[in-house]
């Protein structure tokens, strides 16, 4: 019987890996084309692929954590950004050098990561204790408030000697990959370690003359891969966690808490535990997102509530309630909706030869009267980074009307550790119709 289950869950895992591989392939093709059109050098193209992979991985982490809250247990947490901030701030406070300003505790990175996750879980506990007793809409208000309180606290001058105030922490510890590959992590041109030398030798990109660029790129690629490994681990953890009696209780809380209680489930405890677990994972996502590659500092305004909404949109695209859908939604949102539009705008601006785009909408509207559309076009392309969120809004309205279940939310992912359809008494073998 258990072999049945194994083969079935394995085959689903293969299908899901296929979905994600397909999405990544699509993204890589899109960004290869964009890079080529923009005339990027090789390292530029590779670097843009690395950046997309990074965004996909960190969005994936955050969306998975939110899926545990909202997709599974129906906990309407719109304070994701705040819990990510607590994670990354705590981990940096723990790991930054003692002499830095603001000073850290100089502890090893693993302690920083675990500490960051614990701190997020703890804030989750404090926020959750009163809020989880309330109806779900009050939980939403509470979490968004907590998230903003966290941001303002980190921003405040009063604590700036510990948090760096508005400018934040500048002393982000180097990526562990950097320490692994270089004898002196602070200098990119220092002597590589044995492992570093081997990897740098292997990854010698043809056409990239400069040592620094090649090395920095290699380190970024491997740091990104490390985050991808973390994402895979979290994904597998969550798949196991929810394909179980625990997952069933979470789903029952989402569907009808009173019914769950009437069957003897201590729903408050399940909700609190799940809230804390999800918050810890959000903390982890924050650490990977803001404390890793390409960040020179961590500052409060990186954690404005819109980050939370991006993550929500990604989850809605992917399909709430599905872990694979979460990763898929994160990938498509980060790649196609967040990263690609500004690049497309740049290409179009160059291709159409739009120059001197007006600064204001008035300036853009005026010429339309005289039949000139180019200024309007230029204005729109110039403001693509803002405009993309209008696209996101339109897409969201479309999705909610036409496909509220998202890409994968429609399929029934049974919360069970075994294949429930196996009938023991009259097992006819091949009766499973999945």
């Amino acid at each position: 019987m258990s072999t049945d289950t194994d083969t079935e869950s394995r085959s689903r895992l293969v299908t899901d890996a296929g979905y994600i591989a397909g999405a990544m392939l699509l993204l890589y093709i899109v960004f290869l084309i964009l890079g080529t059109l923009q005339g990027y050098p090789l390292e530029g193209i590779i670097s843009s692929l690395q950046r997309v992979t990074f965004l996909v991985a960190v969005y994936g982490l955050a969306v998975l954590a939110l899926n545990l809250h909202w997709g599974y247990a129906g906990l309407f947490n719109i304070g994701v950004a705040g819990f990510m901030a607590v994670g990354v701030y705590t981990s940096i406070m723990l790991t930054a050098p003692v002499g830095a300003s603001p000073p850290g505790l100089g502890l090893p990175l693993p302690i920083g990561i675990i500490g960051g996750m614990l701190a997020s879980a703890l804030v989750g506990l404090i926020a959750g204790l009163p809020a989880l007793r309330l109806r779900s809409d009050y939980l939403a208000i509470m979490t968004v408030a907590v998230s903003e309180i966290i941001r303002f606290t980190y921003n405040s001058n009063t604590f700036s000697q510990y948090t760096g105030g508005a400018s934040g922490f500048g002393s982000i510890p180097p990526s562990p990959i950097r320490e692994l590959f270089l004898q002196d992590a602070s200098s990119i041109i220092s002597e590589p370690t044995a492992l570093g030398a081997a990897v740098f030798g292997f990854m010698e990109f043809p056409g990239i003359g400069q040592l620094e660029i090649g090395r920095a790129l290699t380190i970024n690629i491997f740091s990104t891969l490390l985050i991808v490994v973390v994402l895979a681990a979290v994904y597998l953890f969550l798949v196991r966690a929810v394909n179980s009696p625990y997952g069933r209780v979470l789903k029952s809380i989402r569907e009808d808490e009173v019914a769950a209680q009437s069957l003897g489930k201590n729903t408050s405890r399940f909700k609190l535990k799940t809230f804390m677990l999800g918050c810890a994972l959000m903390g982890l996502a924050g650490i990977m997102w803001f404390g890793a590659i390409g960040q020179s500092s961590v500052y409060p305004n990186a954690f404005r509530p819109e980050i939370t909404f991006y993550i929500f949109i990604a989850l809605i695209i992917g399909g709430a309630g599905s872990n694979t859908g979460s990763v898929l939604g994160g990938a498509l949102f980060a790649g196609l909706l967040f990263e690609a539009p500004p690049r497309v705008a740049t290409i179009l601006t160059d291709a159409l030869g739009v120059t001197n785009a007006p600064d204001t909408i008035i300036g853009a509207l005026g010429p339309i009267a005289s039949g000139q559309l180019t200024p309007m076009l230029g204005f729109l392309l110039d403001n693509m980074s803002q405009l993309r969120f209008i696209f996101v809004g339109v897409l969201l309205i479309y999705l909610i009307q036409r496909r509220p279940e998202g890409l994968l939310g429609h399929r029934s992912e049974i919360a069970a550790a075994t294949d429930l359809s196996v009938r023991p008494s009259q097992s006819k073998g091949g009766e499973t119709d999945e």
Partner: protein
Amino acid sequence: MSDEPGPATTNIPDDVETPDELDPESHDSAVEEAAKRTPRGIPLRVDGLRKEFGGITAVDGASFQVEAGSLTGLIGPNGAGKSTTFNCITGVHTPTAGQVQFNGENITGLEPHEVANRGLVRTFQIARELEEMTVLENMMLAPKHQRGESVVRSVTPGLRRDVVSQEEELREEVWEMLEFFELDHIAEVEAGTLSGGQRKLLEMARALMTDPEMVLLDEPLAGVNPTLEEKLLERIHELREDGYTFLFVEHDMDIIMEHCEHIIVMHQGKVLAEGGADDIRNNEAVVEAYLGEDVS
């Protein structure tokens, strides 16, 4: 507080504050004696239960008991306080005054899950199936204290084996229960797609998966077609013969008269009468409360 109903006959509860007399005491011990002899424990006892919502008294000093292994009916006109009594027993509401005892333990004011875990489960007037979960998932949710309800056990490789083996055992019980209620052919569909009657069946089957001693059925026949109604009642009788105790809320007099050996009539938050079908039929207060309705 303790306002004892006369032994299995008409009882019009007077006010609280009845001092413990010899008679109810002896009645107590008689019931407990009987309970000791029955295999499935001591009956449910409700003493002077009172529930006020703002200025409205929904239950006004109701006292009754349910004998082990019985099918007891609780009837009364709309607004008699039946559902509130149910909610007070099962922990949904905390009573304003009075006491609920189950198996000799005072369970007044316990949380709903604590009551359920003591072996006293309920169904709802409007079935609360978990719509986006399959019938199988609904059923598998119910068994108490599953090992895999802990995240750590579900995730850790060695410990997960126990989770899986327990689930395999429970799966077997679930399929048996589904066959008993003739729900096995729809086991893999989402509960939200079931018909009203099937939902009621599912809810009862699911409640039984918690391995209860006693089941409180809140209008299990509401919205159920006559064929299914017959089936449901049949199942209830079979289960009762297996030793389950049922307290059955229903507003259809005929069904209660026909199927329950002991009937409690509530009216305006009080227990108006208690006894067998004949006692109730001939009780003037009951006839009056139902105002000319044909009780025979």
